[in-house]
């Protein structure tokens, strides 16, 4: 709702501990929540502060624990350890029907024996509101989701997109403090989904209710959220605004999961990073390091070298490479190029015809963002150390995800083809 509140909440997540009740602007406070199903650890030590009026997206692959976290907030699951607080009251000990939290289910979960109107009015009628009030609020809620014409229909008689709106109205009509949305758009076709993303975001601004939205679709998360909490194997990988999480990914996993990237294994010595024959200045300490360089950060160099003053402000790194592959995507296209030393990079440029032969490319040193090698769950080997132990320490890689044994899904919702698989196929030929 207020931008100021959102900004203040942005950086609180890592500082949270299970000490005192949360500070004034945090509405929901998740404190060291862990969840096991028998021996299966689903969530470990999740701490997160959610501000009032915020649109927070919990993003993760299937099996990352995002739905479990949402179900803990709704009250359908109990955390194995840790606490959840809302408005300075303990939430996780309350049954779901006492929480001022409502859920929009992935399958909508409309009551089939009730009309649309009865579905939307269910919560109010349970709360024993006067009939006149129920009628008025239901018709307002239906108007808000543009479904007034279907008030008397049964849910089975309306389309999936319409059922989705009813599920939303049924939750919002109760004026919850927090609205939980469990992949509500995943059953809709692509066009309707995009439309609903915009509508949902607008609706959230209008009602000012905190939305906690669960999805596996990184694009959806980027479009709608104030902040994204990226979950990986039951742990929070990074919590930040979409812009920040994209431009300054903290880990190699984040860099690869949100958008696409070239991961560069480099050796840093005296403020210079070196990966194969590429070198660029950096501020991080000496030693081995991983850098994320977005494909769109690399561009085809202008024929004339840039003006001297400009070069000082943004040191640009030039290199020559040969075009290996070119995939057309409409407005942009993806290039795979091979540098002189055999290093392969993915580059996104505006679509145009390219000359044959070696080309000159450049990127700004600041766009090579140092990232932490993603720590893996206890059940998987540490791939970062495995990588650095191998001779091939300088190649573009995505092996931190490759060695994860389970459930890495190629993001079919992406418009770009450069999934981690694509990057993986890029190998250093001169090794």
């Amino acid at each position: 709702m207020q931008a100021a509140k959102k900004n203040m909440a942005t950086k609180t997540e890592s500082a949270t501990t299970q000490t005192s009740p949360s500070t004034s602007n945090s509405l929901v406070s998740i404190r060291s929540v862990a969840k096991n199903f028998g021996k299966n650890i689903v969530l470990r030590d999740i701490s997160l502060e959610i501000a009032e009026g915020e649109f927070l997206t919990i993003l993760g692959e299937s099996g990352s624990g995002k739905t479990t976290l949402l179900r803990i907030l709704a009250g359908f699951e109990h955390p194995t350890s840790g606490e959840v607080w809302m408005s300075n009251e303990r939430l996780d000990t309350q049954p779901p029907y006492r929480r001022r939290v409502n859920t929009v289910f992935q399958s909508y979960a409309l009551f089939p024996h009730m009309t649309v109107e009865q579905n939307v009015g269910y919560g109010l009628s349970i709360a024993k509101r006067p009939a006149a009030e129920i009628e008025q609020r239901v018709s307002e809620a239906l108007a808000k989701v543009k479904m007034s014409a279907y008030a008397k229909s049964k849910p089975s008689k309306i389309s999936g997109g319409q059922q989705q709106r009813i599920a939303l109205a049924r939750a919002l009509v109760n004026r919850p403090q927090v609205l939980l949305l469990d992949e509500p758009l995943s059953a809709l076709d692509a066009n309707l989904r995009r439309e609903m993303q915009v509508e949902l975001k607008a609706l959230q601004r209008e009602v000012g209710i905190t939305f906690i939205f669960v999805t596996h679709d990184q694009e959806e998360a980027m479009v709608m959220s104030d902040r994204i909490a990226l979950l990986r194997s039951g742990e929070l990988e990074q919590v930040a605004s979409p812009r920040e999480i994209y431009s300054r990914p903290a880990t190699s996993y984040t860099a690869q999961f949100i958008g696409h990237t070239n991961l560069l294994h480099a050796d840093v010595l005296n403020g210079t990073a070196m990966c194969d024959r590429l070198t660029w200045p950096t501020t991080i300490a000496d030693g081995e390091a991983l850098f994320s360089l977005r494909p769109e950060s690399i561009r085809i160099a202008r024929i004339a070298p840039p003006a001297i003053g400009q070069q000082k402000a943004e040191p640009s790194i030039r290199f020559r490479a040969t075009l290996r592959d070119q995939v057309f995507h409409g407005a942009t296209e993806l290039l795979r190029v091979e540098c002189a030393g055999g290093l392969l990079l993915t580059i996104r440029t505006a679509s145009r015809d390219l000359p044959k032969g070696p080309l000159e490319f450049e990127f700004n040193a600041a766009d090579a963002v140092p990232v932490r090698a993603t720590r893996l769950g206890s059940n998987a080997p540490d791939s970062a150390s495995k990588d650095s132990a191998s001779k091939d320490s300088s190649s573009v890689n995505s092996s931190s995800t490759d060695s994860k044994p389970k459930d890495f899904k190629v993001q079919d919702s992406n418009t770009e083809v450069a999934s981690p698989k694509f990057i993986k196929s890029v190998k250093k030929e001169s090794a």
Partner: protein
Amino acid sequence: MFSRAYRTVITVPPLLWVAIFLLVPYALMFCYSFWSVNDAGTILHSWTMTNYHELLTKPVYWQTLLRSMWIAARVMFFSMLLGFLLAYFLSFHAGARKDLYYQLVIIPLWVSYLVRAYAWKTILGTDGVLNTLLQYVHVTKHPLDFLLYSPFAVVLTLTHIYTPFTFLPIYASLEHIPRHLVEASHDLGATPAQTFWRVILPLSIPGLLAGATFAFVLSLGDFLAPLLLGGPSGIMISNIVVSLFGAAYNWPLGAAISLCMLALVLALIFFSERLEKKWSFQ
């Protein structure tokens, strides 16, 4: 799509079966119900309404029919109650033991009906298990004689026998209720009790109707339980039909009563199916 020979082989035997063992006997019964029998015991093949007239005017027939319906209604009520509780427990609270309990409910169906009816006879009799126990713990001084050879015994036995029949459709309909509907109800503020009355019960109505129909129709036509355990006061309409076709040798009247019962049962099934359709949302 399929060859003519194949279709013939597949369709003719079942049709023959239905015709010979169902349609022809019903047609014969229909004819018999309009014929009559003279004092010499000869069937007179001339059309008459006397059987139906007798059925409606002689109290013994319509009163027994009413009593049978009353017994069937009680059996229906108790077996629904038990069946629903059992099915609800299994479906919502049995957890990992669900399959085991389900088998335990089904197993009695494999035991012969007669064995189960006789078992009740040994339990309820004057020197039966129950009376001996009651006297042993000094609840009563003399054996309770209403236990056996009474409508009570018939209702008890039929309830025992038909509860699995009501359990099955109720259990199926409870299992078909998507669990996220229950969660959605809780999420919208409904307590478990409110959720039961407003979501679970309405959605299990098709199963309840099917179970009720089973219990009522099966007990209405039962003649073994009243024969073994009913005594004179527990006689049901089927016992009368049996005796009319047997010792009394009045096939026409027996046929007329049978047809009335058939009509009653068909009407019941028809209405319960219409109601089930109205309440099913799959």
